[in-house]
């Protein structure tokens, strides 16, 4: 695609979120703002297949679809392009900064939409000890209605521990070279990782589930684990995160942050050291949790069928 492809071509290059996973919450005005485009461009996108719903005479769109259109528009001024350019600045810097100890004020707000009343919460907490980090000042969510909070001080640290097993390295390389296209995808759909990859797309959770399965098929103990990516604009953007944990042939558990490696390569040319760090080593901007890759981070026992919203605010401790 050329740098300034018409919006219709951009739409053709995107795998829109299938209806069963789609949540159309963004108004036409919001869509114009996200994509920095005109009403006529929105008409073009709709004509090219951008799914929408009419509510009270207004068209509403899925945020993931808008994000992906912006990411791959080549226009340089859409909000998603600006967001990822900002987020991945760190990946071009000396990786030593990612290997030192870093302490975070970790706060997660849990919200149960259409809550059926006070009940206990189950939260998949940070699980950092295994990788040299530590937890302190933990406040667990108490039984309540609608909202609750988990807070802690989390110290992360990095370590160079690249994958050593040739089979693991080859499977990882094969995945990176397979041409899957990174997209923003709703977490529930990411768990359906076979569908995501059938569409030629990828994302951190889907990629981790997929790669973990390949590692297991090759005879290694491996599991995709969810977690958090730190330093994301003071919690202003909440991005899902997951990586693969695999027991290497040297007996050491390694983390493979496959989607970050792929995304860094796409967004910034000068990230080779960071990409290598993603292939087995641990770095101080990621906090693993106790949640498996395809499991929610929180549950409220009130009986509501709707999933709990989990919003993290992770800031450098000052």
């Amino acid at each position, binding site marked *: 695609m050329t740098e300034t492809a018409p919006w219709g071509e951009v739409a053709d290059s995107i795998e829109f979120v299938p209806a069963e996973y789609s949540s159309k919450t963004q108004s036409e005005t919001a869509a114009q703002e996200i994509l920095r485009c005109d009403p006529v461009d929105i008409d073009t996108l709709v004509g090219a297949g951008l799914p929408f719903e009419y509510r009270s005479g207004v068209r509403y769109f899925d945020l993931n679809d808008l994000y992906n259109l912006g990411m791959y528009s080549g226009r340089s001024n859409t909000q998603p392009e600006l*967001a990822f350019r900002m987020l991945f600045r760190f990946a071009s810097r000396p990786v030593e900064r990612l290997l030192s100890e870093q302490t975070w004020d970790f706060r997660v707000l849990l919200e149960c939409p259409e809550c059926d009343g006070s009940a206990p919460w189950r939260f998949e907490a940070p699980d950092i000890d295994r990788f040299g980090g530590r937890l302190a000042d933990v406040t667990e969510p108490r039984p309540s209605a609608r909202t609750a909070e988990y807070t802690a001080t989390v110290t992360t640290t990095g370590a160079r521990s690249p994958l050593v097993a040739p089979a693991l390295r080859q499977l990882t390389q094969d995945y990176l070279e397979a041409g899957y296209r990174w997209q923003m995808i709703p977490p529930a759909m990411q768990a359906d990782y076979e569908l995501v990859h059938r569409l030629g797309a990828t994302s951190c959770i889907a990629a981790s589930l997929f790669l973990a399965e390949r590692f297991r098929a090759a005879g290694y103990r491996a599991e995709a684990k969810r977690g958090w990516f730190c330093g994301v*604009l003071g*919690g202003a953007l*909440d991005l899902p995160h997951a990586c693969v944990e695999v027991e290497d042939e040297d007996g050491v558990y390694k983390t493979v942050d496959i989607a970050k490696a792929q995304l860094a390569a796409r967004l910034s040319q000068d990230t080779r050291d960071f990409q290598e760090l993603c292939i087995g080593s641990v770095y101080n901007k990621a906090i693993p949790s106790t949640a498996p890759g395809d499991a929610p981070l929180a549950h409220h026992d009130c009986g509501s069928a709707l999933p709990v919203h989990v919003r993290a605010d992770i*800031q*450098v401790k000052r």
Partner: protein
Amino acid sequence: MTTEPIQAVREFILERNPKLEELPDDLDLIDSRAINSLAFIEFIFLLEELTGETVDPEDLNLDDFRTLKSLETRFFAKEAAC
């Protein structure tokens, strides 16, 4: 001189919130959603342009962005003192 950059900030927010008739100095820009999570990035690029300094996304404290007052203190006070 603080008037010009903070005025540019004010115009940025008002342009994106046509329903806002005025922008009090102490309005919580985050909680009121005057700056939402996506516009937040554009806003940071605007601040970089106005201050001539690069913002490290890891060092951001949302409290610095809550009001026009806190923005002025965090990003423009140094210029005011010059």
